[in-house]
């Protein structure tokens, strides 16, 4: 019995250590933002300052990269969300001997390293005279982000009761009216979630973007190059801002998702 208890205690201890391991680096990085030191560190502490936020504000390269990132993300949303929805609808509707093959093809970008997606996109478009830049970044990122969208939409689509479709048609709706009034509203929560995830994936992507961005540096590529070259705590300031935004976004998203799950459970239960 005591060995059981020891194990249970060990597991609890492990969980605490694990979460410390998860958060400590991020906390230290955030703290380094406020250290009045030429290099980003917390040791030694040279005094508390906010000047790195000011430096960041005046960093033109950062602003340019941010605007590139936003443009890319917008492009990815426009392409990847409709493609992802289409793939889910396709897989949910079609029964054919070619389907397992198409399914594997649809999933393949998720199992391909990001650098290879970047490289193949870069090579493919060279023959059309298109070189690295925002356009290729959008295409490269869409290649795999569309598959994420497909998975998220598919998860909800599989729970759809198709009698709803029959009922709508029976009441006189055309296929299009059924699609717009019944199926799309049903899929809406999944589509919105997928859009949030797609935006984030695009904004944060590094491995693929690195190869296809050309001179249109995105914010993530910019941060990486800052870390490797002219490193100052301004990077930490930027990191801290991004972390705060993502944490707020993540918590809101997660809580909203949980409310939806709870609401679904209530609908089913009652």
């Amino acid at each position: 019995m005591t060995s059981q208890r020891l194990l249970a205690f060990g597991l609890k201890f492990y969980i605490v250590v694990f979460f410390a391991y998860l958060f400590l680096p991020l906390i230290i990085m955030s703290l380094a933002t406020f250290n009045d030191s030429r290099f980003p560190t917390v040791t030694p502490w040279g005094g508390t300052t906010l000047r790195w936020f000011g430096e960041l504000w005046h960093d033109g390269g950062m602003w340019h990269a941010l605007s590139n990132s936003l443009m890319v993300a917008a492009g990815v949303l426009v392409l990847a969300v409709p493609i992802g929805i289409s793939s889910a609808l396709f897989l949910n509707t079609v029964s054919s001997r070619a389907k397992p093959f198409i399914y594997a093809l649809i999933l393949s970008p998720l199992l391909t390293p990001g650098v290879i997606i970047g490289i193949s996109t870069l090579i493919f478009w060279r023959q059309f005279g298109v070189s690295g830049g925002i356009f290729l970044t959008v295409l490269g990122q869409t290649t795999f982000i569309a598959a994420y969208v497909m998975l998220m939409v598919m998860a909800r689509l599989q729970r759809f009761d198709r009698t709803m479709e029959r009922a709508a048609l029976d009441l006189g709706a055309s296929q299009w009216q059924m699609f717009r009034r019944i199926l799309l509203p049903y899929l809406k929560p999944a589509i919105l979630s997928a859009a949030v995830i797609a935006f984030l994936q695009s904004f944060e992507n590094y491995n693929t973007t690195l190869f296809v961005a050309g001179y249109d540096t995105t914010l993530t590529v910019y941060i990486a190059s800052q870390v490797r070259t002219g490193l100052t705590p301004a990077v930490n300031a930027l990191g801290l801002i991004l972390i705060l935004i993502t944490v707020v976004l993540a918590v809101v998203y997660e809580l909203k998702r949980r409310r939806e799950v709870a609401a679904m459970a209530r609908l089913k239960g009652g």
Partner: protein
Amino acid sequence: MFRQLSARFGSPVAMAIVTLLGMWLIMMVTLPQLQMIEYSLRPNLLPAQIGGPDDRLTVANYVTLFNNDIHRAIFLKTIWSSVLVTLLTLAVSYPLAWYLAKVATPRQAALCILLLIVPFWINEILRTYSWFILLAFRGPLNEVLLALGLIERPIRFLSGDAGVMVGMVYAYILFMVFPLYNAIESLDGNQVRAARDLGAGTLRTHRRIVIPHAKPGIATGCIMVFMLAAGSYAVPALLGSPGSRWFTQIIYNWFFEGGNWNQGAAYAFLLLVLCIGFMSLVMKLFKVGLGDIAK
């Protein structure tokens, strides 16, 4: 296939579905990969030579890897280190996944999952960068170890592969925890209790009951983490040193420093083959299919 789609959604929507899906699968997924392979089989030529007598298919770009000792060593090291990263991640994630799925109360589990998800919404570059600060020569980890008297002079964590591997485990752990958690969660708790009642110890219970049940999750996690590790550019670029280069960095150099895209394409294809090979191996060993992985 089109008939089924238009019967359900009407022709305009069916047309849109087929067009979008076709465009994606052909123009983004399939053709670029094929083009990359084709590229890797051609020599790097000046524009004037293209279409000339030297422009023919060759495996020379693949031979380069076998003749270049440094590249071959880095290739093998990338494989070995990625396997190690995968195993480490599995070892670190398993107790956590077990705790979340079977030990924690639903409230605890919900909180832990939220805590797990939040850091992973944060940029991979930033997460890696945070380790760069932590592991710096004059960074907090060294300071703490010095203050505790555990070391006498600071350690250069960032000069070898260890820093890279720690960073990778950190970066990709979620891709292991969630498949594991999902797999273990579906295990009937009575099976575990029954094993306990029959006198099986903790280790044996896990080895005989939990791990076999969690196989699809383990396979999925391993495939994802290996793919991410072997294909990572960010982590070795930030946490590595010139002495601890990763295969992706060699590929990058072929493209943007060596200016030899054909050679780069060959290396990239080898990396892809490596990942596919690892995936097939794991799927065979664990007897799981593609459908299990997509969950």
